[in-house]
């Protein structure tokens, strides 16, 4: 079967976004044409809109069941506008002290900061939480928040170990970049993910709450949409894009895994004074992070862009707040000259090979310029 994803040549920043597959854009346009009414209305147009939203929710439940390796029902799925919003709804409905890892997203760490008695657990050099320290923090916590894997460096977190050693502790699991890429770990109670992660539209995320969790839903959570008016076309786009990914997930993950192996080996052999970060084995298949000494991240991103490659960086000069990535800092990694690669869906081995060909000359150009 032909792949539906055709990212632009040289795109190695899939986390930064990729074009909507044509089939997803078409499904969204059709849904916008038919689903314009308020889905709570009882008239014909309202029912039509409601049916589209219900179908999208049910499709996501089916495909997420496949990704999670267990049955997830439609009623357990909520939509909202973004992952940070989904996490806020999840935590608002579950009071009590929170334990979380130091390499969770800044949005989640901010939510933890305003909550009383939050405990933040540190990580090792790969960016993996200290499971023993987490176990101790869990003893005095009502809820834990953990990512399936770190989206900056790819390292997987020991969710199943935390779940097994703390069976009473509900885990709010951030499945960003993991759905359809790796089988999800077992043992979570609430899950969040954004549709952009599977090449779906922006502005749509999901919160899954297992039925047995004593979570208090916000008022007006009508038809599963939390906060604001339902984006019906967005929900349909999210469902269509997830279905497409789940149909191809095994092939895509295998290819991405091999391409990242190629990148890791090529970066180490092609550059001097470079440190490749993150767990080389227990990782997301499509993410690689490395730091190049004696260059600025900003200059290297710009130099690669000139040569036709779009990449991201966690260096201070590229970040929003003139601070390096909190993930790299927590790992004790070198934060300068940092490059984050994330293969978009449909990325080809040719793209990866041509990146490896130009990388040494891009680094040499930046170093010569200093």
């Amino acid at each position, binding site marked *: 079967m032909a792949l539906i994803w055709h990212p632009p040549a040289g795109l190695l920043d899939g986390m930064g976004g990729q074009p909507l597959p044509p089939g997803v854009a078409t499904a969204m346009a059709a849904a916008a044409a038919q689903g314009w009414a308020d889905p709570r209305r009882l008239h014909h147009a309202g029912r039509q809109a409601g049916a589209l939203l219900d179908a999208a929710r049910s499709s996501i439940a089916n495909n997420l069941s496949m990704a999670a390796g267990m049955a997830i029902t439609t009623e357990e799925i909520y939509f909202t506008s973004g992952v940070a919003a989904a996490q806020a709804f999840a935590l608002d409905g579950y009071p009590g002290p929170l334990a979380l890892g130091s390499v969770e997203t800044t949005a989640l760490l901010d939510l933890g900061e305003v909550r009383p008695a939050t405990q933040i657990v540190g990580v090792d050099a790969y960016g993996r939480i200290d499971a023993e320290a987490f176990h101790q923090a869990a003893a005095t916590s009502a809820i834990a928040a953990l990512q399936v894997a770190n989206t900056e460096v790819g390292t997987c977190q020991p969710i199943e170990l935390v779940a097994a050693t703390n069976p009473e502790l509900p885990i709010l699991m951030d499945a960003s970049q993991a759905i359809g890429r790796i089988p999800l770990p077992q043992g979570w109670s609430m899950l969040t993910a954004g549709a952009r992660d599977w090449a779906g539209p922006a502005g749509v995320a999901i919160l899954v709450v297992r039925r047995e969790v004593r979570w208090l839903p916000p008022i007006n959570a009508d038809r599963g949409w939390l906060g604001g008016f339902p984006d019906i076309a967005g929900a349909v786009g999210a469902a269509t894009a997830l279905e497409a990914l789940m149909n191809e997930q095994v092939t895509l993950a295998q290819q991405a895994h091999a391409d990242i192996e190629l990148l890791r080996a090529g970066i180490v052999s092609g550059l001097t004074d470079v*440190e490749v970060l993150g767990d080389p084995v227990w990782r997301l298949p499509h993410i690689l992070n490395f730091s190049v000494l*004696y260059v600025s991240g900003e200059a290297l991103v710009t130099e690669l862009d000139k040569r036709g490659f779009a990449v991201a960086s966690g260096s*201070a000069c590229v970040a929003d707040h003139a601070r390096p990535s909190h993930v790299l800092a927590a790992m004790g990694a070198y934060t300068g000259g940092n490059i984050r690669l994330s293969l978009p869906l449909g990325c080809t081995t040719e793209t990866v090979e041509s990146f490896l060909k130009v990388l040494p000359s891009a680094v040499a150009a930046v170093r010569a310029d200093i």
Partner: protein
Amino acid sequence: MEPQVWLDERGRRCPLPIIALNRAAMEQPAGTVIALISDDPAAKFDVPAWCRIKNATFLGESPVDDGGDGLVFQIMVDAAN
């Protein structure tokens, strides 16, 4: 231990302080203590990480004496550098 080499890299951003540190470390014999003064927010992370990667010994950090911005990092050059 009194530093033998002082590098004042205040006002210079990543990667310049680390480049200056590397250059000084290559010129000095093993056991030399270098003091690097930097107000780059990345230096707090990158000086210890550079020491780890280059087998130098990170001796610690302290505020600058005059109470201004920045930190003094002390590094001992290792034989393997």
